[in-house]
C-alpha cells in the first residue's frame, strides 16, 4: 500500500476545494493578506498569524486540519492535566489527592523537570485551543474531571496504571510513555497537514512539527531521569533514544511485576502497524520518494557504517536513528483508558 502524495487534496470535499483554491490564488497574487500574515509573524506569535489567516483568508477550514487539531487538543489536555495532578496543581482536588503519595517521593530536580514539561503542555493546550477557535470550530470542553490517570476509563475500579500514584519508577515510566505517544501521534498527523501553497496548513504543520520536537525533548529527559535512577539498565539510553520496540523499548526493567495490562499498553505504545504511516519502533525500512519513484531503504544494511561497530551495534543504531509514527486510531486506542468515556463530551 502506498501513501498518496498530498492525500488531503485528493480526498477533499469539492465544496471545500473551490473557495480554498481561489483563496490560494489570492495569496499567490500577493495581496494585502500576506503583509498581514507577516505582521502577525513579526509579533512572534503564531496564533496571531493564525488569526489573520482564519478570519481574512479562509471562509472554511480543511476538515483534516481541524480534525488533527481537535485530536491534538485531547492529547495535550491529557498530558497537561496529568502533570498538574502529579504536581498537585490540578483544579480538581481529587486528582491532586490521588498523587499525594508519589508526589512526596519525587526528587526536587525531577519536580523542576515536571514543572517545565507541564508549562509546555499548558502552552500547547492554549495554542491549539486558539487555533481551533480561530479556524471557526468549537473547542472540546475538557477539564481535569474528564481524565482517569489510572487508565481505568473512569470506572470505579482503578486501572492498570494506578501504581503511578504511589511508585516513583512507575510514575516516570507512565510520563515517558505519554510523551513518546505524543511524539508518535504528531509524527503520524504531519502528512494530514501537508497542503503545499496553503498558508493555513503551512502554519499549522510548522507549529505541529515544533510541538512534536518539544515532546521528544520531554521524552528524552524522562528517559534520562529513569536511567539515572537505574544506571545499569542500558535499554534506557542516556541519549534519550528509543531502542527496540514494544515493552522493551519502554525500558520497563525497573518495574517490579508490571500488570499484564500495562505490558500490553506499552507494547501498543512502542509497537505499530505495517505502514505506510505506522511502523513498530524497531522498524529499519523506510520509504522515500526520491523525486522519481518511491524507494524502500533498509537502514540496517547501509554501506559505510562499519565505524559503528559490530552487527548488533549497527542494528541498534538503525533502530534508534528513526522514531516511528502511530496513526490516530492507534493513539486513540492507547489513550482511551485515560479518558472517562463520556460520549456527550465528544471525546474519542
Amino acid at each position, binding site marked *: 500500500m502506498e501513501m498518496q502524495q498530498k492525500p488531503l487534496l485528493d480526498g477533499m470535499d469539492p465544496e471545500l476545494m473551490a473557495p480554498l483554491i481561489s483563496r490560494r490564488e489570492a495569496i499567490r497574487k500577493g495581496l494585502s493578506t500576506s503583509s498581514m500574515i507577516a505582521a502577525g509573524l513579526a509579533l*512572534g506569535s503564531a496564533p496571531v498569524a493564525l488569526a489573520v489567516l482564519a478570519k481574512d483568508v479562509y471562509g472554511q477550514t480543511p476538515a483534516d486540519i481541524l480534525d488533527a487539531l481537535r485530536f491534538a487538543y485531547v492529547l495535550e489536555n491529557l498530558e497537561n492535566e496529568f502533570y498538574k495532578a502529579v504536581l498537585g496543581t490540578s483544579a480538581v482536588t481529587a486528582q491532586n489527592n490521588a498523587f499525594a503519595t508519589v508526589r512526596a517521593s519525587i526528587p526536587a530536580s525531577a519536580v523542576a523537570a515536571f514543572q517545565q514539561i507541564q508549562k509546555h503542555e499548558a502552552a500547547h493546550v492554549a495554542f491549539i485551543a486558539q487555533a481551533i477557535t480561530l479556524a471557526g470550530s468549537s473547542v472540546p470542553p475538557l477539564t481535569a474531571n474528564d481524565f482517569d490517570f489510572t487508565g481505568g476509563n473512569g470506572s470505579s475500579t482503578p486501572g492498570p496504571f494506578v501504581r503511578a500514584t504511589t511508585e516513583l519508577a512507575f510514575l516516570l515510566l507512565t510520563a515517558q510513555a505519554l510523551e513518546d505517544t505524543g511524539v508518535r501521534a504528531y509524527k503520524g498527523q*504531519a502528512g494530514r497537514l501537508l497542503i503545499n501553497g496553503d498558508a493555513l496548513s503551512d502554519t499549522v*504543520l510548522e507549529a505541529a*512539527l515544533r*510541538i512534536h520536537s518539544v515532546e521528544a525533548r520531554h521524552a528524552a529527559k524522562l528517559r534520562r531521569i529513569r536511567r539515572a535512577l537505574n544506571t545499569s539498565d542500558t535499554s534506557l539510553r542516556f541519549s534519550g533514544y528509543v531502542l527496540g520496540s514494544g515493552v522493551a523499548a519502554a525500558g520497563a526493567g525497573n518495574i517490579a511485576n508490571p500488570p499484564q495490562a500495562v505490558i500490553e499498553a506499552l507494547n501498543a505504545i512502542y509497537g505499530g502497524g505495517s505502514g505506510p504511516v505506522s511502523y513498530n519502533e524497531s522498524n529499519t525500512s523506510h520509504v522515500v520518494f526520491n523525486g522519481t519513484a518511491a524507494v524502500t531503504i533498509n*537502514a540496517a544494511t547501509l554501506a559505510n557504517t562499519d565505524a559503528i561497530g559490530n552487527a548488533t551495534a549497527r542494528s541498534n543504531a538503525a533502530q534508534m536513528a528513526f522514531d516511528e509514527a502511530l496513526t490516530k486510531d492507534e493513539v486513540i486506542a492507547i489513550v482511551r483508558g485515560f479518558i472517562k468515556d463520556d460520549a456527550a463530551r465528544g471525546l474519542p
Partner: protein
Amino acid sequence: MSKLRPDPDQPLAIASASELMNPASRRSFVRMLLGGGTALLLPGVFVGCDDDDGGITGPDETPDPVTGISFDLRTDVGIFRMVHVLEQLESAFYTAVLSSSTFSSFTTEEREIFTDIRDVEIIHREFVAAALGSAAVPDIRGSINSTTLNSILGSKATIISTARMFENTGVAALNGAGKYLQDARNLLIAGKFVSVEARHAAALRDIAPPAGQDANKAFAGDDIVDANGLDVKLEAGAALGKVVGTNLVIAGTFASPAITNAPTATQGTASADFFPTNP
C-alpha cells in the same frame, strides 16, 4: 611557501605523500590546479604513494575539499541535500570527537551519549545518501576546517557546545523545512529524523546547560522553547548560516549564494525564525 595562500605564480612544492595528505597543503594543491598554477610533485610523493596501499583517496582517508555546494529548494531532493550536508558534518564531527584525546576525559554517561549520537548520525548520513543517489552531496569531510576542529576538540566544553549547536540546528532546520516538502512520505522521514535530533539536543543540554539556564529545565529551556510551547525553527538560509558560523567548514565549500532557488509559493511561505544565540 605559504600553505594557506598559495601564490599561483609560484610553483607549489610538495615533498611527500604525507604532506599531500595534510589538508592545508592538499587544499593548496587543489587551489593551485584550479587557478592554473603549477604543482611540483617531488619524487618523494610517488614513493609515498607506493607505501600507502589505500592511495591518495583511499576509503579511510580524507577526500579532497568540495567547493561550491548549492541548494535548489524547489524540490524535496534539494531540501534533503541540505539535510545531507548537516548529517555529513555531524557524523564527521562526532567521529572526530570519539577519536580525540579529550574523549578519554568524558564520563561513562557522556561517552555513551556521544557514541550513540555518532552511530545514529552515521546511519542518517548513509540513509540520506542512499535516498538521494546521484543527487547526493559529495563527501565533504575534506572541507572541514582542521584548525577549527582541533581547537574545538581541545576541551569537553567546546565539544559539547558545538554538539548542541549542530543538534539544535538540525531540529530547527527540519522544523522549518517540513512545510516545503511536497511528498508526505518525505515529510514522514523528516519527522522520524527530527524527533531523534531533538532527543540528542535535550540530552546534550541536560549534561551541559548553556550559560544561565536552569540545570533541571535546560533540556527544554525557555531559550529553546517559546511561550507557545514551540521548539526552535530556522528557514534554510539561516540554518546554513549556523553551520557556517561554526567555522568548521572552509570558505568556498558553499556557493555564494548557497541557495540558488528558494522554495516557491506553491510549496509554502517563509515564517519567522526562532533560535537562541547559544543553544
